[in-house]
């Protein structure tokens, strides 16, 4: 059983702040983490490995420093780590990212591919289903539970007001929700092993059988035309009173606005 887990290194967006003067993002000092949904996907893969035995390969596309995320995955228990890195892949939107990842995945044997539902920096939820489309395999998104049954996988797939229990034949791609599990910590031995040189396999442009039309900025149908910070609406009135006065003041305001 071979499982491939796609992860992304992301800035912890809950730590991102805006510069109050310039209105630009303060990226300095913002920690990089494994995207939470992806980490849940990795944990799911490791649990399948614990239960049934499996070879777990983690794969990421990003700049050379994304190897930190891969080393963390190795320290958690992944068997193999692959970094897809090349300037030629830069500027990719979800279409080009997914076609590049699909091309890299084709170099490996796989029964199951797990991605996170979405990354917290982009929030698109597109790359998982798009990888499956490029590979021509089944995808099941928004997994909140999964189990293996022979050559099939059973997934509890979340929707807004319901969930479906779905069975699919392998190979198959699953997108994981953070709700799926509580990811394990790295082990000291794992950290030690993960820090060795040569633990990370590198794939560059030359290693992939893919047209230039399908990678990087050139292979991206969408383009960022501009980015900006939202206009802040004018501040209202804020008061500090005792509890009873506060309650009365709020009621007064609701009456002024004809809500009461």
């Amino acid at each position: 059983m071979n499982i491939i887990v796609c992860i992304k290194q992301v800035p912890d967006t809950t730590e991102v702040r805006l510069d109050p003067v310039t209105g630009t993002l303060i990226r300095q000092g913002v920690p990089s983490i494994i995207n939470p949904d992806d980490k849940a996907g990795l944990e799911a893969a490791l649990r399948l490995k614990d239960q049934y035995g499996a070879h777990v390969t983690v794969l990421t596309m990003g700049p050379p420093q994304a190897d930190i995320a891969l080393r963390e995955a190795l320290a958690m228990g992944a068997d193999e780590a692959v970094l897809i890195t090349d300037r030629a892949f830069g500027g990719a939107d979800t279409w080009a990212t997914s076609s590049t990842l699909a091309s890299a995945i084709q170099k490996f044997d796989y029964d199951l591919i797990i991605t996170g539902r979405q990354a917290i920096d982009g929030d698109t939820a597109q790359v998982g289903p798009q990888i499956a489309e490029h590979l021509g395999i089944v995808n099941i998104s928004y997994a909140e539970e999964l189990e293996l049954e022979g050559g099939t996988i059973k997934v509890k797939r979340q929707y807004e007001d319901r969930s479906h229990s779905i069975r699919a034949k392998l190979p198959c791609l699953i997108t994981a929700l953070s709700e799926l599990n509580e990811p394990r910590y790295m082990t000291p031995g794992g950290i030690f092993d993960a820090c060795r040189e040569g633990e990370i396999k590198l794939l560059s442009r030359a290693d992939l059988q893919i047209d230039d039309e399908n990678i990087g900025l050139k292979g991206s149908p969408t383009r960022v035309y501009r980015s900006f910070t939202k206009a802040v609406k004018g501040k209202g009135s804020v008061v500090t009173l005792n509890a009873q006065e506060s309650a009365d003041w709020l009621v007064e305001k609701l009456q002024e606005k004809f809500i009461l």
Partner: protein
Amino acid sequence: MNIQEYQGVFVFIEQLDGKILGVGYELIGKGRELAKARDTQVTAVVLGHNVGALSKKLAQYGADRVVLVDDPALEIYMTEPYAKALSEVVQAYKPEIVLYGATAIGRDLAPRVSARVHTGLTADCTGLEIGEDGNMLMTRPAFGGNIMATILCQNHRPQMATVRPGVMQRISAVEGADCPVEECKVPNLADSVNVEILDIIKKVGERLDIMDAKVLVSGGRGMGCAENFAMLEELADALGGTVSSSRAAVDSGWQPKDRQVGQTGKTVRPNLYIACGISGAIQHLAGMEESDLIIAINKDESAPIFETADFGVVGDACKIVPLFTEAVKRVQMMKSNA
């Protein structure tokens, strides 16, 4: 790809158990604006089984035409039959724009279709307009809502976008409106079924959906514990609303996920939003800042929620809310006696 060949605005209409989701009407409303700017029409695309009767309602909400793929394989949502049917509709009709709700279905279906027909897709848009050169400008939050980005898809068609429910405005239904309905036959859809649905588990929600509420009393980490949400329920009852929460309260297990407002929760725009013990992380603000009137109660006078609130009170929500509820009831009592 000859871009000129692609014309018209298409809206994917999501139906569940034969009922249209509200976001479908909202997208038709937005689609009409876009279509007007492009001098073209809005087509609503319905996939399902025995769903022809839905066409009338779509016409009432502004669709100029309905395209229907009615097939037993489409009765319950499964990725592949839906992706195949919709891709064939796109290839047959060549629309210039396709809009989807950013729902658990739309966010699964749209990427699969975009990869298949080889075009761009912009996720979770909050703004759509036609630029001077005729391309669609798709604006969306990025970096967890910290910045906004406007995205273009210039050289591929259709231009595709998902839009979060509750963001666009539907038009008032026009009684008696009608529009042509075309049935599009997609052969061998049954053969594309590649998963088996073993069970459907519906969540029983007895409470009002927070997206439909006119008044929301919302609690965050500052409420301290799950039990303290009872006082928010009382205030919500007095004001005819319901309770929602921040992500922190959901992560703490105080409130179920379906109550969560924000970037990873729901987008709400009630007449009145009362934030109690919510600091106002940008991810939270992204989900509620369009509310008509915002009240904030928080201990920390530097909490960002006060930047967005119309009226703010610095203090302990757990102490103020019960008094607020009593004061509200007192005024209501006086009015009903007057």
